[in-house]
């Protein structure tokens, strides 16, 4: 069977056969296929040049990015000169995404200086404020939430936030006093280094204004362990990942995000980066965690850092893909890539976040009041 030609296999001989298929449709030649493919890609590239240029710009630094920029830059110019970028602009406008092709590197954060200390505004507290002249209480009264006045919680970040984010949201749904707003805003391959890829500074400012969250759970840094940053202030340069200049600029961005949320009346819970399978990556993540922790410590009233590193380390202190759950069963907590979380890992983080929420806010006194009344 194998040695016989397939019934439909055309012969390579020069004998001319009608160049039509079984259904009478005209067939092409290999040269025709190649010519159409090449021309389509050239014309298609001109029609999509603004998007291609943005994609090239968004790549990590390196020779591929340099080559891509060298090609797409002039291509975008030619496309614009020939008005070939117009159809794409029209399509983008029609689907309400006109700004997609803009390269936005603006780091819009409150000016550096004294960290914002705004407390969540407009919330009832469990105890009345101290009388004038009275001795201030040792610990400030916790802001209370009730089923009528729920704690509004928003989750955002890079791809690392997606799985734990949904666990947190599910936990919120189960609580009568926590309301998830805005779902889980997890964006793959984004971070605070590259606003050109996705401008989180703008996004967080907009969402804080629109959703008015009392708590924002953030998870960033998984894509920020690189030297290259866009959106640097004029005159500022960054020497390389982990250097003093890098830490200063990254800290400015982290602190700026925390301040943006605080000014909108929200509290930031920043999830630290976990230990990963790669020791080198873990080392880089440690450095990012240190910067975030430092910024959170500067803002004790409005930002909390939640460490995930130690919780996800194995018995020997190293990376562990499986850990014991609350019932003592070994469950897969980390994804196969050695970085992301599995659902069971997400549930662990959700429990940590809920614990912190209970420490920071009064989420239970309404039960006593309801029971006594």
């Amino acid at each position: 069977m194998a040695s016989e030609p397939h019934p439909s296999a055309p012969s390579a001989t020069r004998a001319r056969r009608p160049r039509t298929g079984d259904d009478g449709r005209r067939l092409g030649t290999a040269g025709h296929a190649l010519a159409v493919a090449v021309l389509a890609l050239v014309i298609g590239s001109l029609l999509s040049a603004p998007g291609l240029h943005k994609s090239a710009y968004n790549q990590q630094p390196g020779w591929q990015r340099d080559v891509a920029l060298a090609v797409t830059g002039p291509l975008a110019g030619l496309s614009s000169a020939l008005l070939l970028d117009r159809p794409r602009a029209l399509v983008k406008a029609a689907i309400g995404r006109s700004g997609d092709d803009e390269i936005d590197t603006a780091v819009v954060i409150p000016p550096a200086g004294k960290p914002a200390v705004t407390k969540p505004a407009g919330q009832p507290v469990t105890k009345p404020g101290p009388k004038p002249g009275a001795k201030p209480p040792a610990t400030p009264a916790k802001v209370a939430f009730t089923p009528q006045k729920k704690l509004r919680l928003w989750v955002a970040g890079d791809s690392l936030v997606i799985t734990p984010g949904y666990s947190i949201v599910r936990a919120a749904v189960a609580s009568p006093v926590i309301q998830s707003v805005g779902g889980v805003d997890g964006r793959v391959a984004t971070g605070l280094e590259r606003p050109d890829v996705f401008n989180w500074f703008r996004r967080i400012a907009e969402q804080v204004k629109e959703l008015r969250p009392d708590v924002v759970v953030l998870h960033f840094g998984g894509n920020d362990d690189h030297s290259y940053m866009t959106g640097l202030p004029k005159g500022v340069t960054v020497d390389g990942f982990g250097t003093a200049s890098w830490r200063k600029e990254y800290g400015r961005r982290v602190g700026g995000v925390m301040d943006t949320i605080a000014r909108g009346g929200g509290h930031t819970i920043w999830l630290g980066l976990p230990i990963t399978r790669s020791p080198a990556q873990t080392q880089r993540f440690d450095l990012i965690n240190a910067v975030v922790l430092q910024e959170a410590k500067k803002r004790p009233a409005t930002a909390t850092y939640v460490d995930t590193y130690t919780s996800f380390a194995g018995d020997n202190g190293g990376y562990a893909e499986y850990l014991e759950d609350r019932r003592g069963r070994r469950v897969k907590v980390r994804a196969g890539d050695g970085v992301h979380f599995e659902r069971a890992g997400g549930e662990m983080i959700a429990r940590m976040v809920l614990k912190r929420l209970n420490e920071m806010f009064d989420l239970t006194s309404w039960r006593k009041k309801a029971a006594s009344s």
Partner: protein
Amino acid sequence: MLFPTATFAIFFLIVLPLSWLAMPKVHRWRPLIVVASYVFYSWWDWRFIFLLAGCTIWNQLLAVRIHRATVPSQRQALLWVALAGNLSVLGYFKYYDFFVSSSDSLLSLVGVGVPLELQSIVLPVGISFYTFMAISYVVDTYRGDFVPTTFEKFAVYLSFFPHLVAGPIVRPGELIPQLDTPRSPRRVDTSRAFYLIATGLFKKVVIANYLAANIVDDVFGAPGQHSSFEILIAVYAYAVQIYADFSGYTDIAIGIALLLGFSFPQNFDSPYAARSIQDFWRRWHMTLSRWLRDYVYIPLGGSRKGTLLTYRNLLLTMLIGGLWHGAGWTFVVWGAIHGSGLAAERWWRGRPGHVAPPDTRARRALERFVTFQVVCFAWIFFRADSFGIAWDTITGLVTGWGEPSPLVTSGVLLAIVVGIGSQYLPARLPGLLMERFARLPVLGQAAVLAFALMLTNAMGPEGVAPFIYFQF
């Protein structure tokens, strides 16, 4: 290397002319395409090319020995060795941790643990597809349906990059004979190839990715926080998403193979227009369903051993089909729903006194509607990460009516309507479009294709999401 990326476009623009240049001397073409396919495969993880090479050597050696063996018992023993090798590799990479954790959970109920360690095993992309193709090869050889080919041709058959990572699952008799003689460079079905590539890209990049990002991922991530209407629409959206994602991939794969001069079997035929579960499996992932029929259902006895055993065989086949998709009990339940559906239909049609009702338009519509609802219900288990999520989704379908549904937007509804509506388009429409396209000059064809690429690129979300079936 994903199809809808610039990297693949560059790779293909290099491979396409080289392939046709080498084609007249097919003995030169074969090593070239094997190298190209291994480069394509190594883009994910270069280490797994050794697994692919090992799979090729193992199956070729055993297929040749099976063919040469004359004693039936020896042939059978060699077949079992070949199958054991293939299933061990698949079992280790895909099911080891699932087996250990499931056994551990079960045995911990009686206070006993499994003395096996869980391991961090990375699943090689496409392993389920090429392992099944390799099994086809040795089983067809054993049955005498196919004479083993040369090592070179078998290496091309197994690794040919258009089908390598997510099918279609091509049978030896469909592809290997095409490798015997050079493909004619004057008879390339370019219009069909470009039509399939353009529509496949649109389905994947625009429809599937849009629905995933705008409703499906959110709802299946936390079904408890969504209204019943949102959940219902998300279930329909997932049905469209997985169809657009997987059929989009196979359309592109078939189109790419056509440009290289090869034809692959059809993999989808308007599955959501099916009138029964049996009809659905004749239209959905057709190359897998016929594989399961020929290598699982029929060897189990098919419908030849009585009514009850036929039901058992249907159920077992679909359970295996479910487990093939993923190492999880939710996939097993998905298979069980389809297996039970097939058995129930068989019982219904075969019950005493059953007379087929008249085939009216209303009846057809009702059958299609009911089949679609059953298929969508099964998709809940396929998509859910756990039984907890599946249960929340099912209960959420009835407990949250009247609540706000902000995720149900006109864009989401339009994408669903386009996805389902496309299955009811007249069958001759693609042929007409291809015929018109074929009549255009080269520049006209390129312009049409370029516009389609621009539209797909502009309407799709930024970045490229992986194909759903890559994880299988």
